[in-house]
């Protein structure tokens, strides 16, 4: 019954952090375009910012029909209350069928608040989105139960259908620079911008974000590493290839390595040229974070390890035997000089 009142719109909530347009905004706008074409709907991308590093109109190149901008000093820092107010207000005004947001720390904070306020469903961390051909409903697919199973979820009787999407899940198509979008600057009711939360400050920490997402080679270790010291072996392999070290959730949970190194659904999504999964069995939780790598190397002693199913080269054996031999060979072949 809600459905008939809805206009045909997909609302994408974009993200501007520290004046930089987050790439997930483009990724989600492009994905929304694909879904909207199936539904015959329009795509509206919402941005809240004080200043932004590129022309917001460019979002039209990836399929936005309308770009909604809320601009002001109150958006310099993230405030979950103000985001929740504005998005809830716009949903009531525009009645979109679908609302998508990146599954960043911000998106994962305001989206559940909006869902609770509007009384609708929300699916977290989707890795697949599609439209059911029969019902026109959004099919939201996400890894479930520690990531060993995929679940497809629908919101059949509530509007809008809402999902957060892991950044770097969908490919970003080439921009179509002939496309033009309507840019609208919002004038919002004063009370939406009020908040009981005071933003005291922000400390940007360069070192915090171990940047394994931008590397050509990622060497990850899991349970099979057995202890923290053994990660030195992976550091060495990563070093001779000019890469960085990643880890499975198990290794991080065991405190062998810090959380910013975690690859997987609850960590980072990486797509390097070459990915090494060493002593990692390969739960979907982990696969969701690395299966888009160009080339995957797996080392595991269990011949049945699921990681072997996604590997381009599988080594079945003792990692403490294989990795040192590999490092030696790479050094001999002219890997990065130590």
């Amino acid at each position, binding site marked *: 019954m809600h459905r008939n009142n809805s206009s045909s719109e997909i609302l994408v909530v974009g993200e501007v952090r520290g004046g930089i347009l987050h790439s997930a905004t483009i990724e989600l706008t492009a994905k929304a375009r694909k879904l909207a074409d199936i539904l015959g709907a329009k795509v509206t991308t919402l941005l809240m910012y004080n200043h932004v590093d590129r022309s917001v109109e460019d979002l039209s190149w990836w399929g936005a029909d309308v770009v909604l901008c809320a601009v002001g000093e109150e958006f310099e820092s993230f405030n979950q209350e103000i985001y929740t107010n504005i998005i809830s207000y716009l949903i009531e005004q525009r009645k979109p069928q679908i609302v998508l947001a990146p599954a960043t720390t911000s998106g994962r904070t305001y989206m559940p608040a909006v869902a609770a306020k509007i009384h609708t*469903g929300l699916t977290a961390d989707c890795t697949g989105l599609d439209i059911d051909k029969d019902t026109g409903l959004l099919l939201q697919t996400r890894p479930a139960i520690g990531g060993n199973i995929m679940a497809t979820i629908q919101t059949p009787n509530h509007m809008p259908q809402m999902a957060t999407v892991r950044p770097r899940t969908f490919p970003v198509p080439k921009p179509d620079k002939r496309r033009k979008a309507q840019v609208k600057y919002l004038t919002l009711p004063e009370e939406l911008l009020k908040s009981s939360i*005071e933003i*005291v400050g922000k400390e940007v920490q360069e070192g915090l974000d171990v940047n394994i997402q931008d590397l050509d080679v990622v060497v990850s270790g899991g349970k099979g590493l057995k202890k923290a010291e053994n990660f030195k072996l992976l550091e060495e392999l990563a070093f001779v290839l000019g890469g960085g070290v990643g880890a499975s959730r198990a290794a991080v949970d065991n405190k062998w390595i810090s959380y910013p190194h975690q690859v997987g659904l*609850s960590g980072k999504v990486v797509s390097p040229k070459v990915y090494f999964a060493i002593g990692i069995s390969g739960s979907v939780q982990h696969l969701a974070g690395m299966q888009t790598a160009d080339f995957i190397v797996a080392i595991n002693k269990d011949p049945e390890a699921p990681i072997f199913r996604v590997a381009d080269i599988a080594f079945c054996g003792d990692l403490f035997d294989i990795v040192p031999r590999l490092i030696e060979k790479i050094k001999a072949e002219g890997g990065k000089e130590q």
Partner: protein
Amino acid sequence: MLSYNEVYFVVEHFGYLAKALARKGSDKVHIAVLVKQVPDSDEVKMDEEKGTMVRSGVGAIINPLDLHAIECALDLRKKHGGKVRVFSMGPPQAEEALREAVALGVDEVFLLTDPCFAAADTWATAKTLAAALSKAGPHDLILAGEKATDGETGQVGPEVAVMLGLPFSTYVSRLAIEKDFAVVHRTVEDGVEIQRLPLPCLLTVLRDLNEPSMPTLSGKKKARRFNVVKWSHEEIDLSPLEVGLSGSPTRVVKIFYPKVTREGAFYKGKDLDKGIEHLLEELHSRGLLDGGKGNA
């Protein structure tokens, strides 16, 4: 004449004001902690027909991040005084998780258990927890782990906060109570955001917050005979239609084991050397063996 929304606004804020006033004259901080019992391993099965989890026969623990929330609550009790209550929604066997919380030193535990709560999504779970918190409250602070290891949605905390009309924050890695405010550090992608929220509020926490303690021997003893308060939908004044599967806006329509296979080469035993040669060729062809050039 006030519109419905305006009346709602006034009522909501009056309730908020009343709660804030209730704190005046007391520095004690009464804390509610939301915990979830989760499977001990990832070896959980799904009910293929209902699309829900089968938890029987699998070892269960308190969700690890919720242990940090409990520890934080116990710390604050030491500093400010007040009571620590733990709430959990789950099947009857989730009582064990609450006894574990008692062993850690919390004051009261509440299990929300009812066959009609089963198969709840995050919305229906939050609805149930919010109703229980309203009945048991008031609390100055509500804490929960940022997410649970099984569902990993991180949605229930913010949803509960909104349903109770409370300010909230997430990804909290540091917390201090200063008079009637909570000052929190949120660890986000590029650093730390510092926020100041009025009490009462709800916070979801990260592992950086503290180091959870182990239960004491006397705590374990106490836990064995401790009274776990059990509430069904009747005690929290919710209709069976508002909770569990029937109260859930979302539906699991399909579950499947992902097939992301690649036609890989498999090496073992004596062939491992061949495998290493194969890998070196691949690294060469991708420009990764040029003495560090191109990737320095």
